[in-house]
């Protein structure tokens, strides 16, 4: 019996490591396939902008457009902006008088629900007929009163880079662009303070540590949650892994958050983002205090759920890499809570998770959050580098005992949550623009 247990202890980390490596290879394959796909075709969008276009001389970034008699109609330039989910590629047509003839979206990786919020069609209509040298670069024109600032900035940036290229190539004009300063504001300061409190918390004991954690979590809930809606999501991690890095001048806080997440997992073996800076974790903790959250989930169910979560996270990343759209990996219900925006499935997921938080302590963090899988993978890597065993829970069930009624209810609820998560991923993959 003891020999069997000993053998289990040795083989389980080995199996985990093997599964992890296979997953890594598959993800790398999906990523390279997704990234190697052809650049978007420009002929059809150019004909949308210039309906009389017959001959299009496609060059690298600026394409000359002619009618059937060879008369020059104008130029079309492609430009990129950095949005929430990666680069956004636009095509801007400029006629021979130097006026904007139209704008078409070539590549869009933004979250569909946020993309629908920006006033892109209105902006494109508004700048049509404007001379290229009189365009203003105010993203507020696109964003309106919505919360999709990054998408709005990407649209303006895309139009701007296209126009600059056309102006330089076709009109021999250099459009001055004011340098964009690094935005270092309250959000960045708060993120740094939260991690500092986390590091301090590691050195504190007892009630002092609890108070530090509560203070940082409440601060995170208010600032990172309800005010800025900037929690770390799997979409962000996926964007970083895909090489679609956000603009550090605009999203410095996201760099701090991701770097803090990875570095503290490596340096301290504990991920301080989840403990001190995650606003959704804070929301669950507060609901848990209201409800008492005394229900304990047995380790075997926790292990099973952890295993299922790892598979879901793998599937989410695989879809995102394969389609080169990092936002498709996101299944978290954060936006529904913090900006009151989400699909019905995300709302349902939020409802189930927060109501479950009344009875079970931080159920999302413990069993469903993709960041937990990333954290376990990082800890495994850290332990492997240090020559230790697996850091995560072994993916093995102890069989033989009949589950209690509470466990059955918990299992059914978990099944519902997993079903909702799969539904959200499928919906994202099927209905993405």
């Amino acid at each position, binding site marked *: 019996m003891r020999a069997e247990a000993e053998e289990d202890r040795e083989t389980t980390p080995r199996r985990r490591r093997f599964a992890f490596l296979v997953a890594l290879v598959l993800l790398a394959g999906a990523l390279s396939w997704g990234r190697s796909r052809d650049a978007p075709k420009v002929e059809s969008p150019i004909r949308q902008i210039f309906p009389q276009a017959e001959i299009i001389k496609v060059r690298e970034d600026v394409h000359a457009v002619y009618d059937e008699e060879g008369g020059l109609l104008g130029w079309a330039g492609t430009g990129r902006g950095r949005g929430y989910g990666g680069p956004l590629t636009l095509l801007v047509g400029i006629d021979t008088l130097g006026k904007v003839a139209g704008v078409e979206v070539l590549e869009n990786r933004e979250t569909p629900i946020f993309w629908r919020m920006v006033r892109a069609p209105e902006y494109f209509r508004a700048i049509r007929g404007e001379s290229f040298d009189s365009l203003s670069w105010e993203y507020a024109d696109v964003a309106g009163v919505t919360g999709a600032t990054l998408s709005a900035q990407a649209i303006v940036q895309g139009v701007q880079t296209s126009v600059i290229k056309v102006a330089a190539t076709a009109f021999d004009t250099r459009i001055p662009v004011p340098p964009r300063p690094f935005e270092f504001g309250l959000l960045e300061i708060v993120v740094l303070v939260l991690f500092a409190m986390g590091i301090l918390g590691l050195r504190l004991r007892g009630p002092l540590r609890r108070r530090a954690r509560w203070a940082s979590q409440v601060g995170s809930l208010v600032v990172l949650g309800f005010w800025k809606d900037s929690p770390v999501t799997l979409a962000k991690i996926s964007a970083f892994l895909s090489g679609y890095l956000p603009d550090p001048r605009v999203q410095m806080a996201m760099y701090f958050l991701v770097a803090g997440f990875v570095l503290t997992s490596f340096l301290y073996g504990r991920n301080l983002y989840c403990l001190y800076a995650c606003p959704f974790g804070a929301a669950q903790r507060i609901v848990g205090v*209201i*409800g008492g959250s005394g229900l304990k989930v047995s380790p075997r169910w926790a292990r099973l759920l952890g295993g299922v979560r790892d598979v879901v996270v793998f599937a989410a990343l695989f879809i995102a890499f394969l389609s080169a759209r990092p936002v498709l990996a996101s299944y978290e219900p954060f936006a529904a809570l913090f900006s009151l925006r989400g699909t*019905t499935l995300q*709302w349902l997921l939020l*409802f189930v998770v*927060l109501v479950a938080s*009344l009875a079970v302590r931080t159920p999302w963090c413990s069993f469903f959050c993709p960041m937990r899988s990333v954290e376990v993978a990082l800890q495994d890597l850290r332990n492997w580098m240090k020559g230790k065993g697996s850091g995560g829970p072994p993916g093995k069930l102890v069989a033989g005992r009949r589950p209690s009624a509470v466990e059955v209810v918990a299992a059914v609820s978990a099944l519902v949550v997993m079903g909702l998560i799969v539904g959200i991923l499928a919906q994202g993959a099927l209905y993405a623009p």
Partner: protein
Amino acid sequence: MQIFTSGMFWFVEGILFMVVILGTRAWVRDRGLAVSAWTWALFVLWLGFAGFTLAFVGTSLGEGEPTAATRGGLLFGMIAIVSGVGIWRLFGAGEQRDRERVGSVESGS
């Protein structure tokens, strides 16, 4: 769905409101709980919010807006459930205080 946009719906909701208040009052009296005034105030506020949630879902359905009914119902329902559990525990805290008081009186005598 016609009922949700008619006066009947508000009549039923008013009856429900009164039944819950009177029922809770009777339950508190039967158990001999000492419920403070501010807990009652919170309870009445909560009841108003729960009634609003029902009304929101009902009137949205009545106006042919199932998406608003679903999302609003989930959001407000979630807030109502979480705050309801909190208030329930406040009532329970009163019960615990009473038990402790009885215990201390018995041990004193």
